[in-house]
Each structure stands twice: as C-alpha cells, then as structure tokens.
C-alpha cells in the first residue's frame, strides 16, 4: 500500500476522527448510562433497589440528561479541540450533578424521612468518564498554573453553590451529613490538623535533616535507609506499634499527658504520620540540593560566600521546587492516610468510614471518603501549581 492511499481524504474535517482516549471515555460512559443511575432504599441499612436512568427522573429531565450525555459522548469520541472538550465536559458534569439531586427529590416519597436515595454505579461511572474527559483536556491545554488554580476555584465554588442551594439535600449523603453536621465539622478539623500538622512538623524536621545529609555525605546513606525502613511498615501496624511507647511516656514522663500525649488519640496518629512524611521530604531535599548546578555552587564559593550564605542564597532557592514536590507528595499521602488514624482514636474523616463499615451504611462511608478525596485532590492541584511557579524561573541553568 502506498502512503497516498493511507493519507486521510482532505475534504474530511479534522474533528471527524476517533480520539484514542476518547474511545475509552466513551466506553466507560456507555457502561455508566446502561448501569443503574440511582439506588433506592426504604431505610439507610437495608439493601436497595436499583433505578435505571429513564426511571430516575421525570420524563423531560431524563430526556435532557440523555441528550447532554449523547453530546458529551460524541465530543469525547471525536477529535474536537481540547477547549471544546473541556467546556462540554464541565457542562455534562454540571448537568449530571444537578440532576442527581433532582433524581433524589423525585424518587423520595413525600414525608418519608427514612427512605434513602443514593447515586448508583451508573452515576459514578458517568462522573468518572467525564472527569477523565476534563482532566485530559486540561492536560492537553497546558494551562499556566494560575489558570489551573482559577479553574479549581471555579469548580469548588460550583460545588459549594450546589450544596448551599439545597439541590442535593434529598441525597442520602447529605441526609447523613444533616444528622451529623457538628460531628462532621469537628472531624474535618481533626483531619486537617492531623494531615497538615504532621506535614508541617515533618517539613520543619525533614528539610534541615535533608540539608545535613546533603552537607555531611557519610550521614546520607544511613539516614535514608532508616527512613526507608520506616516507610515499609504497614500503616495500621505503625499506628498500633506506637500505642505502647506513647502510653509509657504518658504514664512516666511528668507533664507528657498534660500536653496531650497518650497511647491512643491524636499523639500516636501524629507521630505515625510524621514518620511516614520524613522520607519523601528528606530525600527530596537531598536530591533537590544535589541537582543545583555545580557551576552556580562553584561560582558562589569562588566569590566568597560562606557555607551559610551559599545555602540560603543559592542552594535552597534552586533546590526549592524539588523540596516542594516532596512536601506535595506527603501532603496528598497524609490526607489519605489520616483516615486510618480514626482506628486509634485520632479522629478525622476516617471516623465516618469505620462507623459506616461497622453499620454497613455505605452513605456514611462516603461521608468520610468523599471529603478526603476532594481535599487530597485540591492539595495536589494547588501544590503542583506552586511547584511549577517556583521552578519556572531558572529552568535552564
């Protein structure tokens, strides 16, 4: 076959061709449309009945959803410009989320406070498919960090608006929330304190430790090996292992229990999360400083900077993006890991997850899991943008 035969017909528009990732997205979306859109249960713990998309909404709204899904399906499948894909993806997601709330209101019998309507597998798959479309389009657009932050802010604002307007109030997730609003915010605070607190302490300890390992070469292998071993301890085991020593400290060191140290609760959770955070921060600090251009360091020495001046004026600023990447890794990791802290009484969103598992109430599990995922996602996007902004200057040494 000659090349001429393989070449596309010139009269065909550019968008009229299959997009590789789009095929996958379309397949997921098709599966999502076929699977049940919602789950209806007479109360929160009985197994529910599945409700197909066509039955989950009043006729006109079901039609509107079907049409927008079809449009999204076509845009995902074909080679439309990334910006078109992004906008259509957001519109479909918006329609999907708003109509999920409508579906709950539609399916819940009036005055029935026990009935629960939850999003079904179909909804989650559809949401996943179009979220994939949006993230793929965002990657292709290569937006500047500030633009990405602006889009994140807009998405968060839209979600807040949806929740504030009461559009989702009939959904099981929000009903669980309504029953536990004070506890939810208390655990949210505990979660944030544990995740951000452990990263903050690990940064304060880990960056100087990394600098020390960088300056004192013989120390490096030893410290990194110890931290590597800590990293391999399963998280549940580490939480458990810390109970005994901390309980001993609380009992035997005067004043220890007065500042909140005890075998269970926040202290062991914080210590375990801190231990997990150290390796990425220390090793990224070492790598970041090691990557600083040798010419810049030689110039700094040759011009008469002291060790300290060189560190502050040259090595740390140039190694900063890599150090920040380490902090980003542990922040996202710890936001997820903090859920396990609930097992040893550390609090956080994990409380709902474990309560939910105990009661086989999936809605309660989601009440813990969804905010955790959102939090981790927001942290990842914000810190990625920060890393990119700081590494922009001086990209080429």
């Amino acid at each position, binding site marked *: 076959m000659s090349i001429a035969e393989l070449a596309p017909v010139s009269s065909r528009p550019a968008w009229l061709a299959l997009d590789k990732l789009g095929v996958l997205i379309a397949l997921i979306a098709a599966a999502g449309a076929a699977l049940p859109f919602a789950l209806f249960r007479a109360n929160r713990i009985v197994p529910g009945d599945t409700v197909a998309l066509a039955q989950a909404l009043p006729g006109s709204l079901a039609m509107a959803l079907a049409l927008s899904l079809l449009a999204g399906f076509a845009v995902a499948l074909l080679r439309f410009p990334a910006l078109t894909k992004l906008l259509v993806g957001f519109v479909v997601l918006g329609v999907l989320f708003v109509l999920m709330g409508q579906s709950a209101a539609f399916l819940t019998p009036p005055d029935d406070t026990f009935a629960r309507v939850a999003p079904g597998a179909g909804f989650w798959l559809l949401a996943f498919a179009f979220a994939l479309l949006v993230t793929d389009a965002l990657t292709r657009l290569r937006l500047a960090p500030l633009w990405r932050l602006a889009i994140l802010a807009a998405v968060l604002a839209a979600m807040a608006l949806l929740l504030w307007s009461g559009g989702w109030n009939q959904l099981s997730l929000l009903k669980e929330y309504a029953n536990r609003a004070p506890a939810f915010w208390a655990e949210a605070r505990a979660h944030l304190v544990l995740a951000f607190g452990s990263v903050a302490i690990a940064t304060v300890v880990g960056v100087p430790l990394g600098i020390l390992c960088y300056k004192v070469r013989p120390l490096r292998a030893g410290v990194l090996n110890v931290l590597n071993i800590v990293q391999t301890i399963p998280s549940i085991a580490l939480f458990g292992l810390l109970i005994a020593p901390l309980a001993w400290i609380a009992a035997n060191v005067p004043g220890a229990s007065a500042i909140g140290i005890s075998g269970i609760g926040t202290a062991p959770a914080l210590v375990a999360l801190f231990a997990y955070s150290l390796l990425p921060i220390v090793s990224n600090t070492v790598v970041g400083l090691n990557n600083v*251009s040798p*010419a*810049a360091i*030689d*110039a*700094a*020495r*040759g*011009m*008469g*900077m*002291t060790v300290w*001046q060189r560190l502050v*004026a*040259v090595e740390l*600023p*140039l190694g900063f993006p890599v150090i920040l990447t380490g902090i980003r890794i542990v922040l996202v990791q710890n936001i997820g890991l903090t859920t396990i802290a609930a097992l040893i009484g550390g609090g956080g969103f994990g409380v709902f997850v474990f309560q939910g598992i105990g009661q086989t109430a999936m809605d309660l599990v989601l009440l813990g899991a969804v905010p955790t995922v959102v939090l981790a996602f927001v942290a990842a996007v914000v810190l990625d943008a920060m890393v990119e902004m700081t590494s922009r*200057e*001086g*990209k*080429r*040494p």
Partner: protein
Amino acid sequence: MIEIDDITKTYNGQAVVDQVTLTIQPHTICVVVGTSGSGKTTLMRMINKLVEPTSGSVRIDGEDIAGLPAYELRRRMGYVIQGHGLFPHRSVGQNIATVPKLLGWTKAKTRDRVDELMTLFQLDPAEFRDRLPHELSGGQQQRVGVARALAAKPNILLMDEPYGALDPVIRAKAQEDLLNIQRQFGTTIVLVTHDMEEAIHLGHTIAVMDQGKLLQAASPAEIIGKPATPFVAELIGTSERPFRLLSLFKVADHIEPGEAEGKPIEASASLRDAYAELLWSGRPDLPVQRDGQVVGRVTLDALARLAARPQ
C-alpha cells in the same frame, strides 16, 4: 604580585600539581596552558583557596594567604568559570551585585557600580538589569559573568576556561573586551585555557603545564621561539610556529616607507593578518592605513624575516 612558591597538591598520593613555583607580575595577564588533567585548574584554584595546597605557599602582595579566611580572600578577587556559572534564579543586576552585597556596600553605590559595569560590557542597564540569565545569549551571559567578577573592583581576576563555551566570533570579541579592560584597570589576570592560540593572543606570560609540572613560564615570543621541552613545541604546533610568532606583532610597529597597490590594511591589525592578506592577494606589499590615511606599507620580505625562528 602573586607568588606561588613550591606548591604541591596530592590526591590519594597522586600529585596533581607538583612543586610549582611561579611569580605573576602585577598588572599583567598570565595564561596557564595545558591539556586536560595537567593540573592547570587546580593550580589556579589554590590561589583563591578553593583547593588547599598539600605543601608550599601562595603569597599575594607579600602576604601568605594560608592565614586568611577563604571567603575574605575570595571577595578580594574576581572569579570567572567556564559556562559563566551565573545564578539562574537571580536577575542580571542581582548577579553582578553579588560581591558588593557580600561586602555590605550601600544600595546606591551597588546600583551605580552595576550600571557602570553593564554599560562597560555593552549591555543597556535599563533593558538587561532585570532579565534572568537564561533570557540572554551565550555571549551576553559570558559578559555578565566577567562583569560580576569585576563588581568589587578586584586587583586580581581568576578565569577558568572563560571562553570555552563560546563560538569563535563571539570568543574573539570577548578576548578583545578583556584586553581593553585589563589595559584600562590594570587588573592582574590569571587565565586557564587549553587553547594555545588564546594563550598567545592574551598572555603577557604563558605558563605551560603538563602532568602537574610547570614546564615553562615565559613571554609568548620566547615560548614560540625557544620552547623548553618537546611537549611545549608540540603544544604550539610546529607548523604553526611562524604564524603564531607573527600574530604577536602589530602592523603599526613594522611600517616601512613607500607606496603599494591595492586595498590597504589597518595599522592595528596583527602581522599575521597582514601576511595572510599578502599571500591571498598575491601582492609583494600592502599599503597601511591609520584613521583612513595611508601611512606606509608592509612587505612580504620583511614579514618573512620576522616569521623566522628568533636567534
């Protein structure tokens, strides 16, 4: 004056610099030439204590540097390295202001000095001061590197293969700039290179090193005419010798009275350029002009005599 006295540096028992003694006169350019691994860079780095000698001493204006804190000594000397070594996260102005800032100069004084140097190196301060190094061309980066080294008006400038990364045209320009600056400020310059052409062009003194030993330290004419060892002769390039010798002299110093035909040559050109022009145009002599006026001629015969081995 820099006096290097019987200096040795060994790494794991291996002498990288082996009992070198070298005196560098004030207000001159000394070029240290050698192949890679000859110890030339190590020798230079012992002058600003980036390398501590195993034995021997370095005195600057009579003062032994062993007793001085390294950072204080280095702030008194300019330092230029290959690939410029500019701080990639700092603007051109901040880079040049590095040593003045370390020395605690006032903001106004530093700023004036930065502007002065940028103007000297043909970089418009208003346009370039706030740019980052990666926004400059290679030649501009190199100029900023030299400007940064000169910021605190050092008496001594150390340069390690400063033009290694430049293309020939920009390199020639940079070399002219350096010669002008040296003449203007009388800075004592120690420059390390592997390029004999560069050494002959720039150096008042050339120090040839091989395997840690200083083979010969002498004027370019002497290095070319009386190489101390076969290695020095080889480094010059035996077939290049007459032309290298001619490159040391200016047309201006060898003008003869008389008329000549054809396109004139500038009096500021080197005899080598004149010789090449004579051969290429097939003429026996060339008119010489200065400021647009023909002032005499140079002849092929005279140049051929000058290119012969000095007796």
